[in-house]
């Protein structure tokens, strides 16, 4: 039973280490999961847990320490330590028997049913789960590419980028300027940019109250807009200026060398430029030939790819219908996919998929808001069946409860992902 999984986990050369589980796996169906975030970690854990050893599960995730994107804004705002959003894969390996491989998946041969790793290894599968999250669309913001992320961070994948952005904000000169270039739809975490604005404003109000925040936004409307705008007026009056598309917010270019932002012809000298570019499915989806446009289409009944019945795709990378790209959504989708995969491989019972999502955001200390919906699959898409959203003018006690609820959710979902 224990084929030295710990040793496997720690092995530096994935290719040589892979030999052991490959041999052992002959008798058992094999599932390979690419990506260890809210979709992938949950799927791996549920398949391993519920199949009770009947399925061989390999999780491929490049980072040994995973930082959740959700709650990374709270780190930027000073409400969390970075270490509090860091997670490792030891429990999934040790307690759930998942083969955790820290490497990049760079290619999929869908005919041979193998995944190729950057380190040279090749892993065979019966069912493949892709949950790679997002990548950025090249050229989405003229003047910016990935080589500029050290000067103009996106901080839209958590970890070192979050640290960099926070450092830059803390180092802003008195009365300095922070500019966010907000992304067009669809993108990861719809309220995320605006929660971030709230967190930056909270930091600046406390430490640098004459500083300014400018948002260049290509969207006419955004998630929880009335709630955020009410909160900004209440807590950060006069500090935040949002330039929407009617004032050229979609016509933006940046110059990382001299730290300027051109918004519809007006050049702004900025101290921090937070560029969140337009997004697309993580590159492995394209490499596997499973995308249409920027995203990977899936059948909402099981999250199976519309192009390959042996590949399931989860979370931000998918085009599934009405669900927002969020960690909660990916976690919800992972459970439906895990059930379908177990059913296909072991004949276990398969029930109709149900999905849900809630996104909490923090505007100011103990001022939390939320939006959510329940979803069910139709032939065309995953469709919203009911929804709710926090109301403007709610009292402080309710907002505090909502914030506390978000802390409980964070503890719950990360336990659900990482064991």
């Amino acid at each position, binding site marked *: 039973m224990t084929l030295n999984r710990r040793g496997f986990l720690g092995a530096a050369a994935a290719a040589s280490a892979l030999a052991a589980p490959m041999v052992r796996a002959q008798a058992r169906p094999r599932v390979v999961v690419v990506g260890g975030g809210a979709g992938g970690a949950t799927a791996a854990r*549920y398949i391993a847990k*519920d199949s009770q050893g009947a399925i061989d599960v390999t999780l491929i995730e490049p980072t040994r320490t995973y930082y959740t994107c959700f709650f990374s804004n709270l780190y930027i705002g000073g409400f969390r330590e970075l270490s509090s959003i860091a997670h490792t894969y030891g429990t999934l390996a040790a307690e759930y028997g998942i083969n955790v491989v820290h490497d990049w998946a760079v290619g999929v041969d869908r005919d041979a049913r193998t995944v190729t790793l950057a380190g040279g290894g090749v892993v065979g599968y019966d069912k493949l789960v892709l949950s790679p999250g997002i990548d950025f669309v090249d050229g989405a913001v003229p003047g910016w590419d990935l080589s500029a992320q050290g000067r103009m961070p996106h901080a839209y994948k958590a970890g070192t980028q979050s640290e960099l952005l926070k450092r830059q904000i803390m180092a802003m000169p008195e009365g300095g300027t922070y500019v966010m270039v907000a992304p067009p739809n669809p993108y990861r975490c719809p309220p995320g940019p605006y929660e971030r604005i709230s967190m930056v404003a909270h930091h600046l109000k406390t430490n640098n109250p004459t500083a300014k925040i400018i948002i260049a936004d290509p969207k006419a409307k955004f998630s929880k807009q009335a709630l955020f705008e009410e909160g900004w007026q209440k807590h950060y009056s006069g500090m935040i200026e949002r330039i929407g598309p009617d004032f050229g917010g979609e016509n933006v270019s940046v110059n990382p060398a001299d730290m300027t932002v051109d918004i519809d012809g007006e050049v702004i000298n900025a101290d921090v430029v937070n560029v969140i570019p337009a997004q697309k499915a993580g590159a492995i989806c394209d490499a596997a030939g499973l995308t249409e446009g920027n995203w990977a289409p899936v059948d909402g009944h099981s999250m199976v790819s519309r192009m390959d019945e042996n590949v399931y795709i989860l979370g931000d990378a998918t085009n599934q219908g009405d669900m927002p790209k969020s960690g*909660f959504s990916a*976690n*919800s989708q992972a*459970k439906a996919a895990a*059930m379908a995969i177990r059913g296909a491989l072991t004949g276990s*019972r398969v*029930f109709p998929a*149900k999905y*849900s999502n*809630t996104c909490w955001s923090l505007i100011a200390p103990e001022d939390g808001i*939320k939006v*959510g*919906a*329940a979803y*069910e699959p139709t032939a065309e898409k995953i469709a919203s*069946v*009911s*929804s*709710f959203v926090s109301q403007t003018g709610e009292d402080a006690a309710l907002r505090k409860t909502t914030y*506390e*609820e*978000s*802390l*409980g*959710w964070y*503890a*719950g*979902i990360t*336990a*659900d992902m990482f064991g």
Partner: protein
Amino acid sequence: MRRLLALVIVALAPMGPALADETAELIGDVERGERLFQQCRSCHQIGAGADNRIGPHLNGIFGRTAGALDGFRYSRSMERAFGDGLIWDLRTLDAYIENPRALISGTRMSYRGMADPQDRMDLLAFLRDNTASPQDIPESAPTAVRREVDLPPEILAIVGDVAYGEYLASECLTCHRRDGGDEGIPSITHWPEEDFVIAMHAYKRKLRPHPVMQMMAGRLNDEEIAALAAYFAALD
């Protein structure tokens, strides 16, 4: 065995807090305390015929060792308190009701705490009224939990499909922790099935206010609610 031993020790303790109150010192307004107890009733029973529900029954709570009732599945933290010999008396109950997690960090009791000291004393006066000891007033009237929603017996009689419940529960477990941990989101682990079913129907009919739960319960049918109740009651 361990539990029995501790009970013996409690019984032998010469100055149990209940006995210390032999003179029935007035600590608060019992009637007001009974009204305050309304917020406890969805989980706790007290009075004649009281039984363990989501929380343990509270008859004789004064002088009881924490985590000591047979037939109730306590949180690990409460079992630790039992091992530590924590005894419920005026002081410990007051601290617990003021902020449950400050005293028992991992308690499954989803109660945020009662800030006002007089409220707590009134509530404790009511609880003490239901602690049998020589000086105690006659048992108060039966206080069987009034159901929040009147469900036809056939709904309560549905036997939940645990396997289906396990799948449906995966949606709950994004927020509610399987181990019963409670940090901002209440535990639903080990609830009696009937209480679970009633609570879910109360959300479904929007009698309980929480919007997320109204949405979640709103799309579950009677069989699905029964399946969830069966699953969460049967968890290890």
